[in-house]
């Protein structure tokens, strides 16, 4: 037995403060309270104050776009990580939401504050209905169908020249005030972030996670898996439609480009970079990718190649993502211990 090189292993244990904050002990001291609330406050305050520090209209709009993509990425992360359904067509939700709100606004004359919630709910129901056939089956089929829908819808609209055809629907109202336009999306994002986080930790959320883990066991426990998947898809598609609806009222125009590949691919790449499963990670990913994509705007579809390669690298080399790494560092300490 050599005494020179003693083998050591890396050990990860939860920080003391993390263990103390689980349960009622969190209220025992300011330090523990801060451990829990500071990250959330940073998120909320940071997001809300971002428009104030950004110079110029251009960057203020970029923030709105970031939030819209973040909503999409949130819905992707929720579906993929917590329910096991990979949606390769976020553009499907965006497109549906955008056209619905355009119709509600221009044809029915409803104000954006009515048409946006309307488009969210109706769009959610519509998308869920269209995705219903593949819900009883394995996840592959969901991926295939969500991949195809945006491609088809774009072509059908173009071919039949309905809903404005290639020109799109114009003359859509914008938000009543500039502040509302800026902050509506941010507040919606924060709202849904916390709401989905809450949902995932309820018993219902547990059932959804079980459906991802092992749907046969859920069936054997007397529950209709299709119904729960439909519920999850409704939530996710409603979020996506909301994003599309907001987008349209910001740009005051709805067209085929809302079915663009961008809306399908960037959320996936953002989720993977930011850390899937954390729900906040996708937001982080968007904060990084959207400005980058703006800078790459001159390169045309090379952007998508860029997202695709990043996505490929992260998926294949199984990188955990920024937020997952961050959370790990925050909650756990690593050290070398002798064996």
């Amino acid at each position: 037995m050599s005494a020179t090189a003693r083998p050591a292993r890396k050990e990860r244990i939860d920080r003391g403060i993390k263990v103390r904050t689980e349960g009622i002990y969190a209220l025992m001291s300011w330090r523990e309270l801060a451990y829990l609330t500071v990250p959330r406050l940073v998120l909320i305050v940071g997001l809300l104050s971002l428009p104030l520090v950004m110079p110029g209209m251009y960057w203020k709009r970029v923030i709105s776009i970031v939030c819209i993509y973040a909503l999409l990425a949130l819905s992707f992360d929720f579906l993929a990580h917590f329910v096991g359904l990979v949606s390769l067509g976020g553009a499907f939700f965006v497109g549906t939401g955008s056209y619905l709100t355009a119709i509600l606004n221009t044809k029915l004359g409803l104000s954006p504050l009515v048409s946006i919630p309307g488009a969210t709910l109706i769009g959610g129901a519509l998308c869920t209905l269209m995705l219903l056939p593949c819900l009883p089956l394995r996840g592959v089929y969901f991926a295939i169908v969500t991949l195809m829908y945006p491609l088809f819808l774009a072509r059908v609209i173009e071919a039949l020249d309905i809903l404005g055809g290639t020109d799109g629907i114009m003359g859509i109202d914008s938000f009543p005030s500039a502040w509302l336009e800026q902050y509506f999306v941010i507040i919606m994002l924060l709202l849904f972030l916390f709401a989905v986080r809450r949902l995932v930790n309820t018993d219902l959320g547990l059932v959804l996670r079980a459906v991802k883990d092992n749907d046969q066991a859920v069936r054997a426990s007397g529950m209709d898996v299709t119904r729960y998947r439909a519920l999850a898809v409704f939530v996710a598609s409603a979020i996506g439609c909301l994003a599309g609806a907001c987008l349209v009222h910001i740009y005051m125009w709805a067209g085929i480009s809302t079915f663009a590949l961008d809306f399908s691919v960037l959320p996936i790449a953002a989720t993977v970079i930011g850390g899937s499963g954390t729900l906040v990670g996708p937001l982080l990913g968007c904060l990084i990718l959207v400005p980058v994509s703006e800078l790459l705007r001159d390169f045309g579809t090379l952007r998508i190649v860029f997202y695709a390669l990043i996505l490929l690298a992260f998926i294949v080399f199984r990188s955990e993502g920024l937020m997952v790494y961050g959370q790990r560092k925050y909650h756990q300490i690593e050290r070398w211990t002798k064996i």
Partner: protein
Amino acid sequence: MDILIYGTINSVVLALYALGFALVYGTSRLPNFAHGALYVLSGFIAWSALNTLGLNYFISIVLALVITAIIGAVIYRVFLIRVRGMEISEIIASYAVALAILEGLRWGGFKGMTYTLPPFIEGSTTIAGISVDYQRLLAVGIGAALVAFLWVFTHYTRIGLALQGMAQDERAALMLGIDSDFMAVVAMGLGSALAALAAIVLLPLGNIVVESGYNVLILAIAVCIVGGIGSWAGAVLAAFIIGFAQILTVVYLGSHFQMVVALLAIILTLILKPSGLFGQQKELEERV
């Protein structure tokens, strides 16, 4: 009558699209979303070899076949094999590869001009009063020959039987000494070669466009879903059903709706009989 001829031609075309995809999915359970991308890529390679490098047409074709097969195998070996077994990651990874290739070609390869590959034989003939190009007839002939060849290959050659064994029960194949990882790479290479073959035969009929990459993928998936996974007969039958349905819609409704037919076919199959026409539900583990 012309519906019959065009329908048959279209059906064989669809079968050609689907063969490579079906092979890879049947063998290694990988839904190869990069299938359409490889199709367009091989066309691009053939075109570049022909026009940029000025090589002989025949050599260009062979080059395209070989290079595409190698690229497919390499992509699998380097990237996709790492996510083998994790369905979600497989889908995202192969989709990312497809996007990288297709959008990369859209940006860097095809810049506004129309790209074509010359047909093998010029001219046309008339069958029952309808004029049909020789190239299309050649496509049908090659398609039929390919299906027959593949059937023989998977039933009578060692590699083919190994692939069949893997398709039916991977653990048993492993126990019999078949290296399933290597076989999966081979399957991917073959699947890519089949995509390339389809491209070489069919691209001369029209232009080489990046959009066809997505279309080919969707049609291949449609044929496999409607026909049922793991069934050659089902795939052929599905190709004919969708093929004729497409021609009928073109004749009566207009050519915009061709792809919608594929989508409807998939949705209908998923609603009515998810395992496809001839798909077999094996054990509980292998369910649809």
